[in-house]
């Protein structure tokens, strides 16, 4: 596994094809949790953890169990969701035990990671592009880091926006969508690097 290739996957997943700002996956926690910097960072790390663990288990399951038996054509989606949901449950149990503050800050958005299309999307990209185990893991970690980066950027902007003089109809969510659109446009500057 060349260092070159790892860097390409990382830069591609974090900047060029950022999961939130370029692929538009995982928008629900993106807008739901990005009001405060602390919960944004916590959510980012939770998603990164679930992504990594999910690919860790899904890649061998798909390669050694589903595909040889010919089950991958119809069982992929449901088996992937099974694995992802279990790991989200695990994260919830661990957070409840070790960081009650973060558990309450994330609230309902923690179980919503299960149906988060970013996680399932990452799993499917790893499978469809036939990435090797190491490539898939690097991709998952980088996707999580890109998600965290987008969340942190949004949280920083939103915290400042709370003091700004915004027309009443645009307060909170509408201005966040406009901000996200502008950020997404800005990320287009990275196109062509990889």
């Amino acid at each position: 596994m060349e260092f070159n290739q790892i860097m390409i996957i990382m830069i591609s997943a974090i900047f060029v094809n950022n999961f939130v700002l370029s692929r538009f996956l995982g928008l629900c926690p993106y807008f739901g949790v990005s009001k405060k910097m602390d919960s944004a960072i916590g959510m980012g790390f939770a998603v990164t953890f679930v992504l990594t663990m999910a690919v860790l288990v899904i890649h061998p399951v798909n390669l050694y169990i589903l595909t040889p038996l010919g089950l991958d054509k119809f069982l992929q989606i449901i088996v992937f969701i099974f694995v992802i949901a279990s790991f989200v449950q695990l994260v919830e149990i661990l957070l409840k035990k070790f960081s009650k503050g973060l558990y309450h800050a994330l609230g309902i958005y923690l179980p919503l990671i299960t149906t988060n299309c970013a996680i399932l999307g990452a799993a499917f990209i790893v499978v469809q592009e036939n990435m090797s185990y190491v490539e898939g893991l690097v991709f998952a970690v980088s996707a999580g880091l890109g998600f965290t980066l987008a969340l942190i950027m949004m949280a920083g902007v939103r915290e400042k926006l709370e003091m700004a003089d915004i027309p009443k109809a645009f307060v909170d969510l509408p201005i966040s969508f406009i901000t996200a659109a502008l950020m997404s446009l800005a990320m287009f500057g990275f196109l062509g690097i990889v």
Partner: protein
Amino acid sequence: MIILWAVLVMLGVSVFLGVMIAVFAKVFEVKVDPRVAKINEALPSVNCGACGYPGCAQYAEAIVEQGADTKLCKPGGPDTITAILEILKESKD
């Protein structure tokens, strides 16, 4: 034949994941004070938010764990306040 494999794979995956979650839930269990559940039952379960907490369950938790004021429940009235004080007193003995 392929259906048999599908059933077996789903069974295997579910059992493995279920056991994993059960083990983790037991090992990392968080002890919940039984008074929280009792006070939650004494509250009217309207979840109106008049007490300042998002729901009756959160108010019950705040009373037991953070010593919140027991007289904040408006729909409950004086009966609820008496019940809450009873529950807090009996478990101290």
